[in-house]
């Protein structure tokens, strides 16, 4: 019974991690059709902002994770959109190449600044006792944060003027411009939002994994798989894909080994894309956001 509960918590935690690393990419890809290869580096930057904010500047860790990291990385995102990405809208391959270049540059820059060594920070949360087992309290924080992000994003897109404009811009940017909207600004803010979410994810994960300038690589593949498998709708697709892959990889990790868990995740993604080329929401939940 306790073991079942602990497995359930681990599976939820794994789903939450997938949501946290991929939701920023989903927003940028889903709303703007920009494939942001520097997404992993935004995650990495979020981790570094948290670690340096806490260890060096002496700020409160929760302030760093929840406010400072998304703010800083979001601003970096807006800056990069203004400098590079905005010139390349509609040219998917060129954007990929440019953002890949950005990714390499950020990795190089961070390696120069902080060195190529893993640094980390401990979670301030105590461990949680579940029957005879104990698990990290940080898992619960990750799960709660993922839920809050999903609900917050849904509210943002459904209830605010910005959300309405963003969704309209996704469908027809010219029409929005003709009706007096400003698609340029919408794109810049959406890219910034995606970057901020990546930064938030990286900040929340820093106490679990530690950070190294090259850590983005280990997130980006999973983030892409989740987003592509999720399909065109940002939130519903992300929840569906994260739940599916998180459950599969954790279940196989328990029954067999972590290696089989990774393999199972990739195999299921291949099969899924073969059956549903447009992702899960290409067939189901089409009306969702």
């Amino acid at each position: 019974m306790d073991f079942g509960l602990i497995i359930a918590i681990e599976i939820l935690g794994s789903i939450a991690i997938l949501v946290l690393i991929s939701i920023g990419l989903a927003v940028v890809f889903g709303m703007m059709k920009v494939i942001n290869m520097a997404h992993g580096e935004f995650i990495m930057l979020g981790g570094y902002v948290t670690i340096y904010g806490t260890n060096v500047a002496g700020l409160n860790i929760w302030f760093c994770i929840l406010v400072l990291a998304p703010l800083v990385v979001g601003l970096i995102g807006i800056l990069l959109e203004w400098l590079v990405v905005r010139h390349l809208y509609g040219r998917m391959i060129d954007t990929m190449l440019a953002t890949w270049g950005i990714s390499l540059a950020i990795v190089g820059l961070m390696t120069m600044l902080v060195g190529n060594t893993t640094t980390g920070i401990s979670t301030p949360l105590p461990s949680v006792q579940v029957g005879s087992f104990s698990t990290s309290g940080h898992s619960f924080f990750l799960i709660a944060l993922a839920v809050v992000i999903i609900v917050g994003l849904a509210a943002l897109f459904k209830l605010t003027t910005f959300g309405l404009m963003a969704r309209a811009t996704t469908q027809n940017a010219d029409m929005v411009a003709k009706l007096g909207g400003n698609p340029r600004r919408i794109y810049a803010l959406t890219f910034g939002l995606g970057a901020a979410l990546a930064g938030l994810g990286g900040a929340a994960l820093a106490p679990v994994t530690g950070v190294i300038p090259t850590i983005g690589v280990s997130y980006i593949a999973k983030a892409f798989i989740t987003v592509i498998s999720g399909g065109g709708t940002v939130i519903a697709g992300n929840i569906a894909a994260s739940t599916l892959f998180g459950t599969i990889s954790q279940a196989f990790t328990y029954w067999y080994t972590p290696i089989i868990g990774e393999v199972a995740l990739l195999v299921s993604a291949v099969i899924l894309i073969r059956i549903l080329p447009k992702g899960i929401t290409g067939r189901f939940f089409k009306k969702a956001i």
Partner: protein
Amino acid sequence: MTISRRTLLGSAAAAAALFQAPRAFAAGDPIVISSIYDLSGGLDVYGKPVGDMMEFAVAEQNAKGGLLGREIILKSYDAQSNNQLYAQYAKQTALSDKPAAVFAGITSSSREVVRPIFKKTNTLYFYTTQYEGGVCDRNHFSTGVTPAQTVQKLVNHSVKTAGKKVYIVAADYNYGQITSDWVKKFTLDNGGEVLDVEFFPLDVTDFGSSISKIQAANPDFVYSALVGGAHMSFYRQWKAAGMLGKIPLSSTTFAGGNEHIALPPEEYNGHLVCQNYLQELPSERNQQFVAAFHKKFGEDYPYITELSMGAYQAFLLWAAAVEQAGTIDRMPVIEALETGISVDAPSGKVTVDPATHHTIVDVHVAEARDRKLNLIEKFEQQPPADTAAVCDLIKNPDDNQQYVIEL
């Protein structure tokens, strides 16, 4: 003859270089040696200290007047935690630098990439990292410790102090797999029981589910052969799950990558390790060495790791062999090393075992606490018994393979 500005500048520079040539060295061309280590990338936690140590060792020898009156030049290559680069640089250095000796390789997989290349090009090769044992190759000398020297001592100690049931977590490549087999063997030798073994690819960072599995198995102690920066998360998550202090942990890799410096002490205090070298060793030789090293690299140097000491010892042995042979030619140096040459190193006496081309060294069981490795028990002059059981280069000098433990 017209003299352009460019040729004039060139010859002026050449002339200046000529006058500045070091005069401490009597005669002869410099001796070139090469090192290939992971100075960047995920394995740099191991490689960078080794790179620093090679620099230190060469500078120290040159300050003493070099070798055979010749200056030593170190060609250093950064393999960037990438085995393809190991292959590329190994060929490059063997063919173009023609070094007197090469010191290379952090992981066992990288060693198996470069070892055949140096064998083929007749380049004397030193592998200086602790590893799973069993390499039998006359062109190769291994100055790192092997399982019979460290794993056995640590398993014995842990079974005695913690209990007989062990759960093994290890990195998923030849080092982790063969080492975990040795842990199994030594546990069974002690009448113990291995509850489970789990392998993790080098880039795994999420250990939550495995930690739950360990709790379900409820071992008396956990044995870790985890490797690299990503796996450092295991120790952090172990603490976050409230396991530190509940189930003791022993490891022959913890601290090898300065885990005890990178992690805050409250995340690892009490983990047991077993190493050839500890920076804290009280001997006078070591105290002097640490002082000299800190003079070059600063008092705040994180920690002089066992891996870097392996490289230092390899360099000392090679230098002693060159002095004894009176030449840097490969075969005379190998034969000099095979006389069972020994040096007085900071870790204690280090002797080459002629039959295996491994080393006989002191090993130390220690407890990691507050950024220090505190000595618990010392085992003097341990032979590489694992490799010695299968490898005899005196009888079979042409042997060339890595023997693997059979359970």
